[in-house]
């Protein structure tokens, strides 16, 4: 039982190195997306190790649930928050680096010393025997979940469902008014002071048709109504260069 064959050794050393590499990458990358990717690498390698240790079901669930769903959700949030935002490195809690180091060291001590001393001398049994009892890994897990650990399992699932419901309630917005229809919106637009029609396209009647080139009104004056709000806010409006002298002045004054 305690012998490790060559294949197992290769799998272990490849996956162990890769998962530690992933963990180091997770805490050293500047970009949140890169951190998430390193984390995914760690998770996939752990899954391979589970499978190599005769726990194929756990390995697959690890990939489907953690890598496929949880990490993906993280990635979603990170990506939607900002395509290019890297984390600010300002420490918000005083001495948080020092505290983190101390706590981290304590955790290492507990894991190495505590677990090490309690597990030392115990023979490695492996899952082989446990899997054989019910005729397979999946059957064994199913048997345990639906007999000995039924209540724990059900209570956990109730907890998870409650949490999901809570999240939905928190994110829910009650509509007090019926949603305005297109016809109502149109009426409201005409009632308002704003110009009800489409805005002029960028660069219409001007030399260029780039998004940041203001359109010219029929009398030749440029109008920045054609510029998207984001560009206007950043002041990224291209100067208009047309032959009409009056319009150049207007463009310079923009």
């Amino acid at each position, binding site marked *: 039982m305690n012998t490790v064959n060559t294949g197992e050794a290769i799998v272990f050393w490849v996956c162990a190195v890769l998962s530690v590499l992933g963990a180091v990458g997770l805490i050293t990358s500047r970009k949140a*997306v890169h951190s998430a990717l390193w984390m995914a690498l760690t998770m996939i390698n752990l899954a391979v190790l589970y499978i190599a240790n005769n726990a194929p079901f756990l390995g697959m*669930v690890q990939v*489907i649930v953690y890598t*496929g769903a949880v990490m*993906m959700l993280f*990635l*979603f949030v990170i990506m939607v928050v900002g395509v290019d935002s890297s984390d600010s490195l300002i420490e918000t809690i005083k001495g948080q680096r020092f505290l983190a180091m101390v706590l981290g060291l304590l955790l290492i001590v507990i894991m190495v010393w505590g677990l090490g001393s309690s597990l030392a001398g115990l023979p490695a049994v492996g899952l082989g025997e446990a899997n054989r009892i019910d005729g397979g890994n999946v059957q064994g897990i199913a048997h345990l979940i639906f007999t000995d650990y039924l209540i724990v399992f059900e209570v956990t699932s109730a907890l998870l469902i409650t949490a999901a419901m809570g999240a939905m309630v928190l994110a829910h917005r009650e509509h007090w008014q019926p949603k305005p229809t297109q016809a109502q919106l149109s009426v*409201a637009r005409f*009632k308002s002071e704003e110009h009800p029609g489409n805005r002029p396209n960028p660069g219409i009647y001007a030399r260029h048709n780039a998004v940041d080139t203001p359109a010219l009104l029929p009398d030749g004056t440029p109008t920045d109504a054609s510029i998207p709000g984001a560009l206007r806010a950043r002041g990224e409006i291209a100067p208009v260069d047309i032959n009409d002298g009056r319009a150049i002045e207007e463009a310079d004054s923009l």
Partner: protein
Amino acid sequence: MTDGQWGWFGVDPWWIVIVKVLGIFVLLVLLTLFTIWWERRVVSRMQHRIGPNRVGPFGLLQSLMDGVKLALKEEIVPKGVHLAVYWIAPIISATMAFVAFAVIPFGPLVNMFGVQTPLQLTDFPVSVLYVLAIASIGIYGIVLAGWASGSIYPLLGGLRSSAQMISYEIAMGLSFVAVFLYAGSMSTSEIVASQEPIWFAVILLPSFLIYVTAMVGETNRAPFDLPEAEGELVGGFHTEYSSMKFALFFLAEYINMVTVSALATTLFLGGWRAPWPISLWEASNTGYWPILWWLVKVQIFIFVFIWLRGTLPRLRYDQFMKFGWKVLIPVSIAWILIVATARVLRNDVTMTNTQILLIGGAIIVVLILGSWLLQSRSDRKAAEQEEAEAKAMARPFDAMAGGYPVPPMPGQHVTLPTRRATSSVTTQEAIDG
């Protein structure tokens, strides 16, 4: 397969493994080239055109030529990309597409160069979950491509695509449950073996229909090809990709189509086993013949993909998500409940068919009565509420009802104090100003 044949997996000599891996690789690449040609020809026929017919017999070599051209094209890498991730994304997509095929059974035990071996790379007790897991890693390729391009359209396309694939993967996973219950296993070879008398597509028809719908959503194909909605998102996640990297995404999409079709064949259409009239022929399920039946079944699914693309317009995104979450998933769960109940009744409770029918009938009667009662009660409640609202409307609006300043109830009239004559407006008008 019987327990005796479990031992056939994982014991192949190394060179047999390499032969199988190469065989699957070549088969998938050829199937991709064929599928592209097949799709173009079928869609053309549906649109009263001829389609590619110049290169090779019937234009069969057209997609090979297109592939060569694509690979030789200039590679354009835009300025704002995150290079490392931009490189990894297509590799993840294509690799995962190939890897998923490791557990698809093509046939029974055969004699391969003097070695008895199953026509399947490998199999283990959770191989169907393995396909799901690989598919969920494959989504990373798409999300990362969208993110690494550093541009808005690909990002939106990537997010759409992954949201869609994750949602439809749930429906897909649920449609497997009934199959697992009937087969008593999650290994592909055993599932094929347990469809010996009758296909699961017949006895588990709802599961089959849900899977077929979910597989179209999972592969981002029309009418569910929202991530590539040209009118909204240019090319979706691969907008900024060109040349070989784009070719990899292209390849991955078509291999994914073949993978989901192969999975459908394995789980619902009896896998490599010959269909009925052919199965009367003794030798039909031996040797290398099953690969032919397998290919025909997979091609039928691919044809359905193409047919859908040629027929249906694209769905709106919110309708599509609503369909996945509010129709497919609840229906699957209800169906699983029914199947599980039926299994328990068949296995553990000794009942005659008459008893089962009587009890089933009684349950249906109770459900109908109950829903009727509930409906009449909710009708009564709605009527009461309407009455109360009518009463509230009839009451004049009290801005300090209950001691606190309150807004008017829907339909109540607000009397706005004006300098001139007091004017009466409804709530809606008051809000509109």
